[in-house]
C-alpha cells in the first residue's frame, strides 16, 4: 500500500506536433487539497483530462486506491468516484438547477422521473453546502458561483472521492471564495481529496496541503505546503519552480506619466437595462492606463461592451478626441480607433477552427484588401511579425488556434487588436487564466503601447494586477461608479470598500 488515494504514473500524451505530457506523476492522498500548478501550457489541463477520461493517454498508468484503472470516458471517471468542476461551466440553461444536478442520473423508476425526490434531495444537498437556491430555478439565471456550487453538489451526491477544481475562483468575488473554501474544508475533513488548479498563489498557500508543479509538460516536483519543521512554501519558490527562473518583479516598471490630453470622455452614460450600468462618467487621458475595479456583477464588462457598440445605451454622451462618438456597432468603434479584448476568450474571442493567421488578421482585413481581394503575402508577414513580437509559441501560422494554450491564444488576440493600430485599447481581464510568465509579457506589451501614445482601459478582478498596472483606478459597484483612486493612494482595503459600497442595500432588497 502506498497510502495514496490516486496515483498517476508516467503519464504521457502527444498531440500532433506537441508533447503535451512527458512522464508526469501525480500522487494525491485522501482528505487533502492537492494544488496542481504550472504556467499555461504546462499540461495541467491535459493531465486532468487524461484522469477524467476526456483524453486517452499514450503511456502511463493510473491507480485508484492501489488498483489500476482504465478510464476512457467521463462516465467511467465518475463511476470511479472522480468528479470535475470545469473552469467554464456549461449548464443546461433552460432547465432547472435540480435537473442540472441530477443530469444523467435522474432518480425514478423505469424511466419515469421522480421529481419530488429529486427536489428533496437537491434541497438537502444545498442546505448541506449552505446554498440558498431554489432547486426549481433556471440554471441559466444563476451566477457563476452558484453554478459552481451546483457542480460541487453534484460531485458530493455522487460520493466522489476526488474532486477536480479547475480555476474555481477565477470568476468569484472574495466572499464567494470564502464560502467555497469553507465547503472545501468541510469535505476535506470527510476524506474527500481535491485536485486544485489555480494561478492564484495566495489561495493555493491558504487552502492546499500539497503542491505539485509542472513545467512544459514535465513533472517538476511535489512539496508539502507546510513542511516538517513548520515552514511554509513561499510564493517566490513556487514561481521559481513554475517558470524555471527567478521572477524578481511581478510588474514591469512604468516609465513616464499620462499626458493631460483627454482622449475619451464619458458623460452620464446609462444602460437601457435598470440592473446594468447607470450614470457612468469619466475621462481617459492619453498614455494612461485606467483600471476598472469591482466585484463580479459590477457591470464593468457590460459597460465596455456598450462603449464598443456591442450593447445599446439609453442616455449619456461620449466624446472621442473632443468629437461626439456614437456607439453604433463594433465595426464603427474599430474605425474610430477603439479595440476591445473581451473577457470570454473562447466564446467571443477566438475562432477555434481557424488557423492563427486568420485569427490574427480578422479585425484588420480591410488593410490587406484592394477591391475585396486579400493580399495573403502581406497578411502573412504582418501576422508573423506581430506573433513573433508577442512571443506566441506555435509551430506555424497555419496551426489552428484551438491547439494553443490559453496564454498563447490571448497573445494572438492581443496581436489581432495591435494590428488595427487602435488608439484606445479596452482590455477586459487581459490576464485571466494565464500563467505568470505570459502575464508579465502582456504587461510589457501594455506599457509599450502606452509609450507609443496609446491609452488603455483595463478591467481586472485581480487586485495586485489592478494596483500594479493602473495609473488610476475607477471602481464600480452594482453598475455605478463609486469612486476614483489615483496611483499612490490606493490600497486593497480602499478598493474593496468602494467595490462593496452598495452590497448592504442589495441584501436588504433581497
Amino acid at each position, binding site marked *: 500500500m502506498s497510502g495514496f488515494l490516486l496515483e498517476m504514473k508516467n503519464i504521457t500524451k502527444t498531440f500532433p506536433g506537441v508533447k503535451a505530457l512527458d512522464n508526469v506523476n501525480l500522487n494525491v492522498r485522501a482528505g487533502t487539497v492537492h494544488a496542481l500548478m504550472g504556467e499555461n501550457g504546462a499540461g495541467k489541463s491535459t493531465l486532468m483530462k487524461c484522469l477524467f477520461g*476526456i*483524453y*486517452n493517454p499514450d503511456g502511463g498508468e493510473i491507480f485508484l486506491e492501489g488498483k489500476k484503472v482504465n478510464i476512457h470516458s467521463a462516465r467511467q471517471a465518475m463511476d470511479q468516484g472522480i468528479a470535475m468542476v470545469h473552469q467554464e461551466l456549461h449548464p443546461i440553461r433552460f432547465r432547472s438547477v435540480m435537473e442540472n444536478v441530477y443530469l444523467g442520473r435522474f432518480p425514478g423508476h423505469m424511466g419515469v422521473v421522480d421529481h419530488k425526490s429529486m427536489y428533496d434531495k437537491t434541497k438537502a444537498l444545498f442546505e448541506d453546502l449552505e446554498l440558498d437556491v431554489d432547486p426549481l430555478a433556471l440554471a441559466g439565471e444563476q451566477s457563476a458561483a452558484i453554478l459552481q456550487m451546483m457542480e460541487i453538489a453534484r460531485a458530493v451526491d455522487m460520493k466522489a472521492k476526488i474532486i477536480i477544481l479547475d480555476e474555481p475562483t477565477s470568476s468569484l468575488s472574495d466572499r464567494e471564495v470564502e464560502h467555497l473554501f469553507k465547503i472545501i474544508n468541510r469535505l476535506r475533513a470527510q476524506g474527500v481529496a481535491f485536485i486544485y488548479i489555480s494561478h492564484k498563489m495566495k489561495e493555493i498557500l491558504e487552502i492546499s496541503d500539497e503542491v505539485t508543479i509542472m513545467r512544459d509538460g514535465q513533472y517538476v516536483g511535489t512539496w508539502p505546503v507546510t513542511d516538517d519543521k513548520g515552514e511554509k512554501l513561499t510564493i517566490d519558490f513556487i514561481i521559481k519552480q513554475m517558470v524555471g527562473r527567478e521572477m524578481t518583479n511581478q510588474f514591469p516598471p512604468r516609465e513616464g506619466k499620462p499626458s493631460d490630453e483627454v482622449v475619451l470622455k464619458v458623460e452620464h452614460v446609462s444602460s437601457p437595462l435598470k440592473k446594468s450600468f447607470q450614470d457612468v462618467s469619466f475621462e481617459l487621458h492619453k498614455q494612461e492606463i485606467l483600471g476598472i475595479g469591482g466585484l463580479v456583477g459590477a457591470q464593468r464588462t457590460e459597460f465596455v461592451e456598450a462603449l*464598443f457598440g*456591442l450593447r445599446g445605451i439609453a442616455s449619456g454622451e461620449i466624446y472621442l478626441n473632443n468629437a461626439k462618438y456614437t456607439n453604433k*456597432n*463594433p*465595426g464603427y*468603434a*474599430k*474605425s474610430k480607433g477603439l479595440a*476591445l479584448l*473581451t473577457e470570454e476568450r473562447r*466564446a*467571443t*474571442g*477566438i*475562432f*477555434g*477552427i*481557424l488557423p492563427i493567421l*486568420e485569427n490574427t488578421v*480578422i*479585425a484588420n*482585413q*480591410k488593410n490587406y*484588401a484592394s477591391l*475585396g*481581394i*486579400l493580399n*495573403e503575402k502581406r497578411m502573412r508577414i504582418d501576422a508573423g511579425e506581430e506573433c513573433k513580437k508577442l512571443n506566441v509559441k506555435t509551430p*506555424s*501560422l*497555419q496551426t489552428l488556434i484551438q491547439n494553443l494554450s490559453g496564454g498563447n491564444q490571448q497573445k494572438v488576440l492581443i496581436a*489581432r487588436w495591435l494590428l488595427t493600430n487602435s488608439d484606445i485599447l479596452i482590455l477586459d481581464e487581459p490576464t485571466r487564466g494565464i500563467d505568470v510568465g505570459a502575464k508579465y509579457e502582456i504587461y510589457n506589451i501594455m506599457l509599450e503601447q502606452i509609450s507609443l501614445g496609446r491609452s488603455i482601459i483595463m478591467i481586472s478582478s485581480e487586485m495586485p494586477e489592478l494596483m500594479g498596472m493602473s495609473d488610476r483606478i475607477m471602481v464600480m459597484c452594482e453598475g455605478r461608479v463609486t469612486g476614483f483612486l489615483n496611483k499612490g493612494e490606493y490600497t486593497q482595503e480602499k478598493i474593496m470598500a468602494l467595490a462593496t459600497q452598495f452590497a448592504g442595500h442589495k441584501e436588504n432588497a433581497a
Partner: protein
Amino acid sequence: MAENVSKTKKLFTVGGLVVLALGIILYFAKEPLGLNRKIYDLPVFLILIGLGFALKGFMSKAKSEDDLDLGSKSFGEFLTNNAILLAMLVLVVVICILQPRFMQIRVALDILTQSSTKLIMALGICFALLIAGTDLSAGRMVGLSAVISASMMQTATYANRFFPDLPQVSIWIPIAAAVLACMLFGALNGFLVAKYEMHPFIATLATQVIIYGACSLYFDMPPNNSQPIGGIRPDFAQIGQMRLFQGIYPGFPGISILIPISLVICVIIWFVLNKTVFGKNVYAIGGNREAAVVAGINVFRNIMFIFILASFLYGIAGVLEAARTAGATNNYGNGYETDAIAACVVGGVSMSGGIGKVGGIVMGVLIFTVIQYGLQFINVSPMWQQVIKGVIIAVAVAIDLTKYRRK
C-alpha cells in the same frame, strides 16, 4: 518528416509517369492486339491520370516548406481521410470489369455534364452551410428561374405561348429577370436570418414555400394555365445544349457547354472563399459568430450577401436547366437542395459551420454522379440506388466526424 514528404512527392511523380507510359503503350498497342472492344478508352484515361499525378508531384515540390504537413500523415489516416473516394474508385473498377463499355470518354463526359448543374447548386448552398445554416429554398429557386426564363424564350410560331404578344427579346433579358427574381428571394432569406437571427432552416423553409406558391401563380397565369412551357427558342436552348469540339475526331461526342460554365463558376467561388475579405468573413462567422461581431465584422451585411450570392447561383442553375431540357414546369428543381447538401457534406463541409473547401465539394458532387451513373450502367434498380445513396451519406459523414473527434 521531411524525408517522408519527399517520398510522397517521388511516389506521385514516378507513379504518375509510369501510368502515363503504360497509357501511351496501350494506346498504340490496342489496335494490333485487338483490345479495342475490351478496354475502350482506358489508355486515354491512363494518360490523363498519369499526367495528373505527375503534375501533382512536380507542383508539390515547388510549394513552400510549411505547407507540406499533409505528406506526413500515416497510411491509416490517408485511408479514413479518403474513404469515400476510395470506395468510389473500387466501384468504378468493379463496373469496368463487369461492363467494359464504361471505360469510354463519352461516359466520362456524360458524368461531368450531369455534375455541372449539381455543382453550381452545391457551390451556392455551401455558403449557407459554412455559416452553420442550410438553404431549403435552393431547389424551388431553380424552378422559379427555369419558369421565368423559359416563359420569355419561346419561338414566335409556337402555339401555346406564355406571352402571346412578346417580341423576340434579347436572350439576356429573361436570364437577368430569372436570376434577379431568385436574388430577391435570396435577399429575403438573408434578411430573415441576419435581422431576426432566425435559424436558416426555418427562414429558408418559409421562403421555399413562398417561392413555390409564387412560381405556381405565375405558371398558372392565363393563357398558360399551368401547362408545361415548351417551344423554346433554339438560341436559348444552346446555352444548355451546345457541344464544343464535336467531331474533332470521328465519334467524339463533344464537350457540353455546361462543363466549362460550371468550371468557371467553380474557380470564381474558390477565389471568393479563399482570397477575398468576404470569403474569410464567411469562415469567421461560421467559426464563431460572437467573436466575428466583436472583431467588427458586419455580420448583417455578410449574411445578406451570402444568401444573395447563393440564390444568384441557383438562378443560373435554373436557367441552365430550362435551356438544357428546352422547357420548364413549376416542379423543376424540386428536391435539388437535398442532393446539393448531401454532396457538400460528403465533400467535407461541416454542418456546424466554418469548415469546407471547394475542392471537397467538387469531389462530393462527382462521387454522387459517378456512383449514380455507374449503378445505372450495370442495371442496378433505382430503388437500390436510393438505398446506396443514403448509406453513402451516412457513412461519409460518420467518417468525417470521427476524423475531427480523434484525440
